[in-house]
């Protein structure tokens, strides 16, 4: 076995893994940006696609138990409206969801929609 063959065998997994690392595993971005989004019609579906897996009730996968994003107002613990400033900032800065650093976060249209929701005063319906 030549050195070239050995090098090829050793680095083959790395070569094959490279395309995998660049794939996207998150939900796709919104097709259109609603001008006047509401929580029930627009924001909650977005949060279910990107956040509620961990930030539901009860919190899962090591997420903080102090709030939930699957409801608008405080129920057992504070809801999305109560945490609005913090969660929107985390999404806009690609801090959340964790895969946002890899390009699997909320897309540009989703971020714009959240901005519009904030401009309109965070309406529920």
């Amino acid at each position, binding site marked *: *076995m030549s050195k070239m063959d*050995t090098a090829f*065998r*050793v680095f083959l*997994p790395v070569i094959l*893994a490279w395309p*995998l*690392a660049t794939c996207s*595993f*998150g*939900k796709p971005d919104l097709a259109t940006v609603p001008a006047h989004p509401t929580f029930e019609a627009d924001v909650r579906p977005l949060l279910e*696609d*990107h*956040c*509620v*897996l*961990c930030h539901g009730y*009860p*919190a*899962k*996968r*090591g997420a903080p138990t102090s709030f939930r994003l699957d409801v608008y107002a405080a129920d057992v613990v504070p809801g999305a409206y109560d945490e609005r400033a913090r969660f929107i900032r985390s999404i806009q800065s690609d801090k959340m*969801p*964790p*895969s*946002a650093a*890899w390009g*699997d*976060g909320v897309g540009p249209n989703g971020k714009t929609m959240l901005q519009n929701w904030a401009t309109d005063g965070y309406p529920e319906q």
Partner: protein
Amino acid sequence: MAQISQRLLLATIFVAVLVAPGVTRAQASSPADTAPQTVGTPTSSVPLPPPSGPLPIPAPALSDKPAGLDFEFFGPDDASRSGPDSAAKVANASELSQKRRHRLGIHQFLGLTTWAFMGASCIVGQLNYNDLYGGGSGRGNYQLPHRLLVYSTAGLFTATGIYSLLAPQPYKKPLKFDSGLVHRIAAIGATAGMVAEVVLGFITARTADSGNSSGIKQMATIHDAVGWTTFGFMTAAGTAWLF
């Protein structure tokens, strides 16, 4: 009186022990054995005709050398067969054999360590699966231990494989069904399982980190099953050398 009887008994046993081998030899040997025999003939154990008849013509000896244990089982040495090129070849093969033994020794140590880490990864991974998808608390308490274990296992597995691939092969070995072949087949299965595990684990983790819940439980279930299968292949690869 009793002492005399004891001495007589001991003397009898002593004489019996001394005489017995001679008796057994005498019983084992037939009268024909006392007749002159031809050396090296296959019919030497057959009773010979009585000495009154004409003596059989002795068969010619197969070899001039007397039969003994001084023979070369594998034939003459390669080095003595031809010139200095063969001697260099033998020396090179010997050096490669030493290198191979050293690398496969490390391969064995790494393989056993990998096996232990893989077992721990499977157990902690199963606990993680039960916690996240099997009706557990869902807090993810086993995520970090599982992640650390699988990174270590993948690294150890890669190192083990590299040491195996880099071991030189001084002699060509014909393919046959033996422990080595079973080990190789199991190792290929373990490698395929490990690659599938890394890919599935990576996809599952990235999907979960992106908050995407679609199909995540199915992927985690497959990841879990493939993990135990891979551990089975590793166990088979290790135990193959015991037989």
